[in-house]
């Protein structure tokens, strides 16, 4: 019995356009969330997929011991491609020379991601990525592929013999591109590739051999995750499952930040869309008061009325969600098409497909917003007194503010949590939103005082504007709140984006070192400096490298814990924690650039006492203080030095960085090799040829491929953020229009009265413009305040960046707010000022 009238009511109201704005708000929320999450997720996947080239796979399982073959074989069940390599350091012999090399013994279709290039011909210049042919899989049995450095240092050529352990190999090619090459100058042994089947012949695998078993996988994210879950119980703690993001590298760091940032921007977009739904839900139910009163008068049972309106709400939600999904799908495809056009090189060949998650998140956003934000207004609707049919000013009692706040806050928090799956981030975002609400309550009070305190002529546009704001103090404060939210979101996204990009750019400014050299002997230091000066190449200083292990602090023997506090074997170990590994040590007379002193003093050049400077975070972690004595084992030799300073180190900079730096008196006499980093442009490539020709024994590591990738990430994230900004601006305009529409009837009545009493169009236009300018300026000011606070919270606790105040923000936000709101507001109210006064008689009498 209720369905037919409910349907008729819905159809009529839809035709009259009364439900359009509510429908639009749901659709916009779903569109924003769907396109943001869909685009964000796919872009992130694309970045990770493309960046996975640096791992040569999507996932890497590494272990110091062989992993049970049955576990490895399970990968087939999950439709994963797999390959493996055994890696170890070993001495290689050729032409009666020997060299410590890093060997990879490959089995299967290595690399699973990225490209490996092998040149079958001798190189006449320094190796570049463009030389050689793309090759998949290991070298043929009995063949070895080597980096050019091996040939120059052993003075051998392609076709010559090379001994690895007990086996003899033929050099079959030169490695010109290795996808997962190490970018660390500290592990700079030249790489060679052999076939996995040849390992047995080398007799390298013996008890006590230091070997690493690396298993590579590629496939869909879900399958990889399922496979890992299946084998995880059988893995031991020292068997590491990693992806490109879990690596400790500038690339992983950038990827993780990009991911966090896209997530955060999306969360802010969700709050805005939810605000629009909340406002329209209130308005939607208020518009139904008369209908409900009339239905009650006609004897319709409460249960039937409830069913009718729940049906109406559900229908609107379903239609809104469907429209949102449709538009959202088109938008995110469009955004991806833009990335393809502008940054084709940064996308993988096979684009990641749209997963289930964006659909689930978007649908739940629409449903949660519609249901939760309509809850209290709907309950209020059902309590409309029947007497309203006679006395139209009779309305149901409003719910307590705290209850409304609880429902609103709860809904927002639920959405944030579903979307981010990050409790801390959701809480911080929610707290900022709550703070805005509190600030706005104060603002509403200020508005009342302002309107009562000022003496203007009743016919002045200022008085009319302020009176209008005062008259709608509650609605006006909500309007200002949502505009402030919108402006705040735009500012946060803009500022964070700029700061994120600035920081990235600072990490790789133009002229960032794109090459490392290592294995430089002391007698080569001066000639290399001269060569670089000749080619006008700017380089970091040459740092001596000495490998050593910290063994004692203040005479107390270190227990062997690692620096990350691995306490798994606590009961077996005792004593203080150390680094748990060998360190690269250096000595210097002067403090390196970008290593500001945090505490203590740098030593004098002629200081005779043994002194050491330690990186600040490491000192904190290991509880090392100024004045402590550190003992280091270098080979069989033991040296002790006093800690005289703590330094900050910018680890993300592309230059040699050290935890421990000693003075000349401590390590100056130790045998060492040197390392340096430098930048050469494409025009200076000939310097590399001369460098390698003159000093064939040095190691050269090129990191320009990594820097290029970092730049691509920055470009992609910038593009994604521009897209998010557009969506946020659309949502802001909708929120503003919703608010203006909510006050339209009252505004209409006021203006018609004023027109009838002889107020000119100019006065009314000015009054409207001033009202919106005031609203916008207040919203902008609050937005600046909350943005500053939000940035401090986010940068300090979430994405760990340095916060700094933004004085221009305050002026900028206030101006942007007032201009933006005045433009949209006056445009939306334009028809009101054009109204002929006969509307009064027609509509209001």
């Amino acid at each position, binding site marked *: 019995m209720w369905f037919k009238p409910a349907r008729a009511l819905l159809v009529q109201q839809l035709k009259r356009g009364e439900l359009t704005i509510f429908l639009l708000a749901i659709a916009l929320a779903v569109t924003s969330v769907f396109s943001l999450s869909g685009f964000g997720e796919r872009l992130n996947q694309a970045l990770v997929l493309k960046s996975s080239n640096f791992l040569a796979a999507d996932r890497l399982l590494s272990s110091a011991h062989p992993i049970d073959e049955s576990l490895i074989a399970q990968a087939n069940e999950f439709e994963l491609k797999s390959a493996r390599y055994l890696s170890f350091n070993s001495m290689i012999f050729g032409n009666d020379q020997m060299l410590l090399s890093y060997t990879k013994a490959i089995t299967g279709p290595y690399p699973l991601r990225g490209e490996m290039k092998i040149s079958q011909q001798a190189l006449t210049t320094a190796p570049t990525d463009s030389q050689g042919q793309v090759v998949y899989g290991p070298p043929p049995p009995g063949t070895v592929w080597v980096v050019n450095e091996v040939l120059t240092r052993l003075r051998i050529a392609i076709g010559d013999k090379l001994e690895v352990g007990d086996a003899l190999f033929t050099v079959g090619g030169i490695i010109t591109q290795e996808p997962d090459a190490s970018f660390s100058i500290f592990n700079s042994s030249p790489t060679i590739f052999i076939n996995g089947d040849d390992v047995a012949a080398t007799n390298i695998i013996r008890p006590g051999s230091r070997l690493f078993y690396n298993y590579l996988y590629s496939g869909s994210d879900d399958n990889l995750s399922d496979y890992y879950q299946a084998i995880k119980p059988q893995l031991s703690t020292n068997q590491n499952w990693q992806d490109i993001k879990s690596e400790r590298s500038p690339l992983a760091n950038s990827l993780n930040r990009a991911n966090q940032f896209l997530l955060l921007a999306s969360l802010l977009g969700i709050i805005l869309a939810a605000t629009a739904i909340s406002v329209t839900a209130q308005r939607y139910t208020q518009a139904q008061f008369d209908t409900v009163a009339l239905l009650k008068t006609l004897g319709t049972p409460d249960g039937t009325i409830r069913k009718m309106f729940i049906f109406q709400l559900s229908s609107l939600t379903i239609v809104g969600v469907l429209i949102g999904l449709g538009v959202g799908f088109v938008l995110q495809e469009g955004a991806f098409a833009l990335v393809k056009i502008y940054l084709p090189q940064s996308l993988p060949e096979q684009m990641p497909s749209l997963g289930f998650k964006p659909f689930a998140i978007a649908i739940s956003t629409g449903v949660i917003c519609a249901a939760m934000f309509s809850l209290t207004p709907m309950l209020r609707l059902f309590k409309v007194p029947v007497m309203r049919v006679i006395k139209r000013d009779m309305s149901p009692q409003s719910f307590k503010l705290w209850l409304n706040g609880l429902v609103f806050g709860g809904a927002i928090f639920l959405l944030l949590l579903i979307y981010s799956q990050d409790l801390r981030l959701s809480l911080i975002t929610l707290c900022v939103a709550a703070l805005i609400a509190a600030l706005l309550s104060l603002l509403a009070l200020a508005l009342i005082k302002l309107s009562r305190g000022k003496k203007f002529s009743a016919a002045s546009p200022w008085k009319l504007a302020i009176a209008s704001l005062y008259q709608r103090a509650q609605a006006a404060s909500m309007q200002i709140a949502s505009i402030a939210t919108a402006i705040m979101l735009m500012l946060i996204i803009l500022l964070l984006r700029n700061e994120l990009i600035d920081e990235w750019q600072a990490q790789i400014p133009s002229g960032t070192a794109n090459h490392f050299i290592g294995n430089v002997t002391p007698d080569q230091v001066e000639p290399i400096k001269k060569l670089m000066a000749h080619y006008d190449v700017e380089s970091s200083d040459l740092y001596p490298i000495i490998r050593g292990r910290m063994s004692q602090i203040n005479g107390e023997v270190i227990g062997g814990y690692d620096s990350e506090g691995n306490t798994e074997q606590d009961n077996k170990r005792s004593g203080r924690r150390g680094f748990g590994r060998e360190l690269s040590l250096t000595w210097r007379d002067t403090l390196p650039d970008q290593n500001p002193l945090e505490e203590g003093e740098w030593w004098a050049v002629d200081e005779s006492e043994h002194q050491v400077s330690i990186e600040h975070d490491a000192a904190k972690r290991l509880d090392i203080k100024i004045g402590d004595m550190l003992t280091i084992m270098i080979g069989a030799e033991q040296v002790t030095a006093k800690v005289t300073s703590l330094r900050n180190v910018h680890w993300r900079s592309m230059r040699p960085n050290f935890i421990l730096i000693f003075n000349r008196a401590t390590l100056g006499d130790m045998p060492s090799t040197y390392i340096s980093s430098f930048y050469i442009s494409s025009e200076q490539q000939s310097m590399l040829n001369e460098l390698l020709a003159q000093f064939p024994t040095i190691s050269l590591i090129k990191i320009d491929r990594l820097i290029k990738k970092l730049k691509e990430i920055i470009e992609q994230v910038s593009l994604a953020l521009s897209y998010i900004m557009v969506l946020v601006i659309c949502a802001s305009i909708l929120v503003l229009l919703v608010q203006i529409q909510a006050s339209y009837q009252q505004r209409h009545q006021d203006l018609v009265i004023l027109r009838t*009493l002889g107020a000119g169009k100019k006065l009314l236009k000015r009054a409207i413009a001033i009202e919106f300018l005031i609203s916008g300026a207040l919203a902008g000011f609050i937005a600046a305040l909350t943005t500053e606070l939000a940035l401090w919270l986010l940068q300090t606790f979430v994405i760990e960046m340095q916060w700094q105040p933004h004085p221009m923000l305050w002026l900028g936000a206030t101006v942007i707010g007032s201009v933006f709101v005045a433009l949209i507001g006056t445009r939306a109210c334009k028809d009101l000022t054009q109204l002929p006064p006969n509307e009064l008689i027609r509509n209001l009498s």
Partner: protein
Amino acid sequence: MNAETALTTDDVIIVKNLIKQVEVNNGMLEILKSISLNVKRGQSIAIVGASGSGKSTLLGLLAGLDCATTGEIWLDGAPLHQLDEEQRTELRRDKVGFIFQSFLLLPALTALENIMLPAQLAGMDDAEQHAIELLKEVGLDHRGDHYPNQLSGGEQQRVAIARAFICKPTILFADEPTGNLDGENGRRIERLLFELNQQHHTTLVLVTHDTRLAQNCQRVITMSDGTVTETTTDSSVTPRELNDVV
């Protein structure tokens, strides 16, 4: 009688062959069908009729709130039918007062500010003083600082009446001025309206369903289906000589 002749007499409103058509789904609907009438200065006139008879439309046209399709309206000598929107606004500001059934006060302004508003719009220097005097006249001098939502219906209508008189209008238009009030309040407003009308020598044109209120006017025009079907005059309620042509 033509308009030029009328201007030399004491007619404050002259209407000639007034037609008002509006567009509806299937063509044009004629709401007013060739109406002509004259109203003397200081006269009180009631327009009565069933709902939909066109009385409110006629009021709107006479007050310069709307434009006729054809015909002429002269308001205190000014050719309303030839004026544009802004000129009509000025004319209303200078010569016309309004009272509405639902009071239509601006909720954001106090009672005093609401009364002052038309005077300030017209650029009167002593708007506040005038408004205070009028507040006294309507018996609300103690309620000047109150906002409309703090006043009863009768008090709101008294404020509206005071607002209507502040610019010393030549003509006062009232649309169902007692329609929203109970019997006692209605009668008080009625008395106040006629008293002030007498004091300020204003011409009063009111639309009403209330026959008692209509009978207090010197002249009653009955409308039906867009035409004037009947006019009655009662010389006992008017001190002035009536001279109208329909």
